[in-house]
């Protein structure tokens, strides 16, 4: 690949760390210690004995748990090695996980959540001792009123999907309280809205109606009119949807649903391209939510923590999950549990605080102009990529050709696949060879051989060019030497995994003990060390 390496000057001669690291149980060495637990004071020991004689015998564990025994440094090394085998956004030009808004997570914000004045506060402390955290929650509430135009916010939702569950709970309760002679049990959503818009509403008993896209990639007003009825409870919709195309009829959608007697929830999990540009209020929504781990810079933590702040209009403000945060005339903040129609609690305590604190600091750093610039540059970057990627052989951006997109694009490798046999999965695995991640799409794959790119505001033009060059190179390889792509990854941590066990109850293994039970013979045969 010498010539290719020269041709693609921006690409790195990359190889990910590969430690060939054991499974932690294989490091077990009887007698080793990772940590010593402090003993109780002598006087306590005298007074309580071993303590366990007080415990009913039927509740005493007979055998210690089968955890491994490993010295401290080896535990550290193990997890550090695993971390090196993980490609975080801090290392990566992480534009390949469209819809998820992988942006810079400012390091200074980590200092705040790792400060004991934030991290070591108990939720049942007297509110006078938590005024700092309550102040941030209250101010965030005020910020989100401005960002959305809605009137009251709850920090209970633990994620975007959980915010959808909260919206569905409010929807259900509202219709229970406003019986109009109809059974309102249908929830309308769209195929390019997040799967949870459908799935979380279904949990609460709603029947799901899913609108599909028309040729322009958008759901149509006519299609919506056909499905609304006296059974319509509401509409949950993203905009822009996963395609990145802004739905200009969005206010007509909300009007139609309102006319039919339903309520509208705006899935603004990702609002990165529209901060200060367009809002839920003007589009006619009754509810909306924002993912703080997306637009508002919370690090994604390998799959969480997350946070989905949920706002509603005045009409619904007493329906929110409790508590909300309020301010007294004397300037002190308090948790308000007294909402007349509240759906109750949907999470323990008051919200995913560390995620909220980071987002608070991020908003404070940027201010109004900064937030608007975030949106503008995210859109600039996205359309720059759109222009470049659609010039790559085999790649396309289905729907609304020639139109601009907001913050992301769902592309397709359909042509590449048809012409070379190299599909989006192969490209994704080959991207790993250059230190990149590329995601396909939510299921089902409406766009054939999909990939979804969202550059956010965080990456420089040079970095975007590097990522584009990765896609360009793989396209070239697909046409010239497809086997290289189809056998990728070559420079990643591991080679292609054997998926054959994952749907087989006899073979799948979700824990090490299950693996040993089902596959011990194989380990013995292969002379694999089970313990250290």
């Amino acid at each position, binding site marked *: 690949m010498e010539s290719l390496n020269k041709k693609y000057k921006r690409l790195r001669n990359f190889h*990910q760390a590969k430690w060939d690291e054991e*499974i932690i149980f294989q490091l077990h060495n009887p007698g080793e210690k990772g*940590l010593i637990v*402090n003993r109780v004071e002598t006087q306590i020991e005298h*007074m309580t004995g071993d303590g366990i004689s*007080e*415990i009913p015998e*039927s*509740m005493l564990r007979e055998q*210690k*748990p089968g955890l491994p025994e*490993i010295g401290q440094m080896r535990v550290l090394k193990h997890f550090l090695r695993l*971390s090196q*085998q*993980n*490609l*975080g956004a801090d290392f990566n030009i992480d534009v390949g996980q469209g819809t998820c808004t992988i942006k810079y997570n400012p390091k200074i914000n980590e200092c705040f959540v790792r400060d004991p*004045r*934030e991290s070591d*506060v*108990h*939720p049942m402390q007297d509110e006078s*001792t*938590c005024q700092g955290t309550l102040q941030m929650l209250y101010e965030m509430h005020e910020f989100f009123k*401005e960002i959305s*135009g809605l009137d009251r916010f709850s920090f209970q939702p*633990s994620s*975007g*999907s*959980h915010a959808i569950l909260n919206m569905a709970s409010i929807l259900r309760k509202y219709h229970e309280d406003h019986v109009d002679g109809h059974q309102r049990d249908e929830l309308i959503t769209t195929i390019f809205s997040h799967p949870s818009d459908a*799935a979380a*509403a279904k*949990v609460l008993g709603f029947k*799901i109606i899913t609108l599909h896209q028309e040729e322009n990639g958008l759901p149509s007003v006519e299609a919506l009119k056909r499905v609304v009825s006296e059974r319509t409870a509401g509409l949950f919709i993203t905009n822009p949807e996963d395609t990145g195309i*802004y739905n200009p009829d969005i206010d007509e959608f909300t009007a139609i649903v309102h006319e039919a007697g339903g309520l509208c929830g705006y899935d603004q999990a990702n609002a990165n391209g*529209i901060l200060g*540009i*367009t809002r839920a209020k003007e589009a006619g929504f009754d509810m909306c939510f924002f993912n703080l781990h997306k637009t508002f810079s919370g690090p994604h*933590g*390998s799959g*969480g923590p997350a946070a989905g702040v949920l706002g509603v209009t005045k009409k619904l403000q007493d329906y929110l999950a409790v508590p909300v945060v309020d301010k007294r005339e004397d300037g002190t903040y308090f948790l308000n549990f007294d909402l007349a129609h509240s759906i*109750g*609690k949907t999470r323990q*305590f*008051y919200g995913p*605080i560390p995620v*909220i604190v980071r987002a608070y600091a991020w908003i*404070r*750093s*940027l201010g*109004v102009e900064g937030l608007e610039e975030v949106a503008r540059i995210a859109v*600039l970057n996205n359309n720059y990529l759109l222009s470049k990627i659609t010039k790559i052989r085999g790649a396309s951006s289905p729907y609304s050709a020639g139109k601009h997109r907001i913050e992301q694009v769902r592309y397709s490798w359909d042509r590449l696949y048809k012409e070379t046999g190299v599909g989006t999965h192969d490209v994704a*695995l080959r991207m790993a060879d250059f230190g990149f991640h590329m995601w396909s799409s939510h299921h089902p794959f409406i766009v054939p051989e999909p990939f979804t790119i969202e550059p956010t505001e965080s990456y420089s*033009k040079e970095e975007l060019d590097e990522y584009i060059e990765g896609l360009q190179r793989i396209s070239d390889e697909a046409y010239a030497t497809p086997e290289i792509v189809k056998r990728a*990854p070559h420079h990643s941590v591991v080679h292609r*995994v*054997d998926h054959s066990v994952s749907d087989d*109850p006899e073979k799948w*293994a979700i*824990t090490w003990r299950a693996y040993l039970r089902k596959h011990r013979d194989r380990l013995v045969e292969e002379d694999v060390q089970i313990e250290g």
Partner: protein
Amino acid sequence: MKNKFVHPYIPNSVPEVKAKMLEEIGVSSIEELYSDIPERLRFRDRMKLPEALPSELALKQHMHAILSRNKNVHEYDSFLGGGVANHFVPAICDEINGRSEFLTAYAGEPYEDHGRFQALFEYQSLMGELLDFEVVNVPTYDWAQAASTSIRMAQRITQKDEILVSELIGPDRRSAIENYCKKAMKITPVRHDRTSGLIDLDDLRSKLNDNTAGIYFENPSYVGVIEHRGEEISQFVHKAGGLSIVGVDPISLGILKPPAQYGADIACGDIQTLGNHLHYGGCLGGFIATRDEEKFVMEYPSRLFGITKTEMEGEWGFDDVAYNRTSFGVREKGKEFVGTANALYAITSAVYLSLMGPDGMSEIGRHLIQKSLYAKKKLEALAGTELKFSSASFKEFVVDFSNTGKRVKDINAALLNRKIFGGIDLSQSFPWMGNCALFCFTEMNTQAQIDRLVSTLEEILA
């Protein structure tokens, strides 16, 4: 193109760069890229936000001024529990939790993100040892969600619609379960004996019927009581065709029997106590665990990472198990829903369990029992106070102040003046208990702290 300011987080604000990119796109301004948003939907006003603090130092000063308005469990002696508690967080937990590679990754493939797949598989495996179950999920939001989902899983597994719920579960969890399950299921409370704090078996038996999907109880209960008749309870419920679901504080399981060993079919709980900080109750993670039976596994909504091999001999690989049961796979046709939850905290707990090992978990369990037993004896001896429940308890127990002539609220206010966070006031959440408080004792509380609590209470109650 005027550009007043380039923020450190937004490199392409540099005017020359902007210009080049606009040229590539073929537009003359960023505004043109918004041309699909109709004017009537444009927000032409200006958001009212406080002035930006783009200087990192200014931001830090601002944040420190706010944080200094908090008091924490080091400045005050804390005896607060109730679902989260002040446990020791080993340095390596903080180290791994803060690693850029884990902290800032998200949803990579099991190639470039092999590390998080393995770490989460190991989390599942370590929890599996603690819980004595072969299946553990990638955690959900919190114990409340884990319990809610466990109940809905039981409904689907048994095809029955009534769940019996112990009246001594956490009040937040009760409320969340109610919201999550009420339309789909009938929720029937199960009484506890007012003296022992144990489940009232007669009441339980009288409520079992053909439609019982199962029972959900917590052990130790929200108020710390150890239920020693789990085996019997599970048997009753099984006989009626239901499942036994037990919520448990995992830090108890080095010393207390895991639910699987007294007949539970599903265990759930929260991992905050395993190496995670308090964060004002904002650092939670809900685990769910079961046997490895297809009919159980296929009802999980969560991601379940499985271990497998790769095409290269000797290499471990990881994969989603039975992905098409999830809403990621099949939207509303999946089991409940799944999304981003709390993977980082699970990785942190995996580190904790790896450090503690079998002896560490056993020792911490014993330590917590000894500590709370000492406090129990001391508090019981105070004039006017009584222990609300006669049964053995784990790290928490209820003190009844009814005969002291003072309300818990006022007692706590007086303790606060002496830099002590007293027990949780139960008068709102459990009115039938009267004037009671739930005290929690952990390895972070020294004997001196407990002694000071007792002597301060003595003064306050005098």
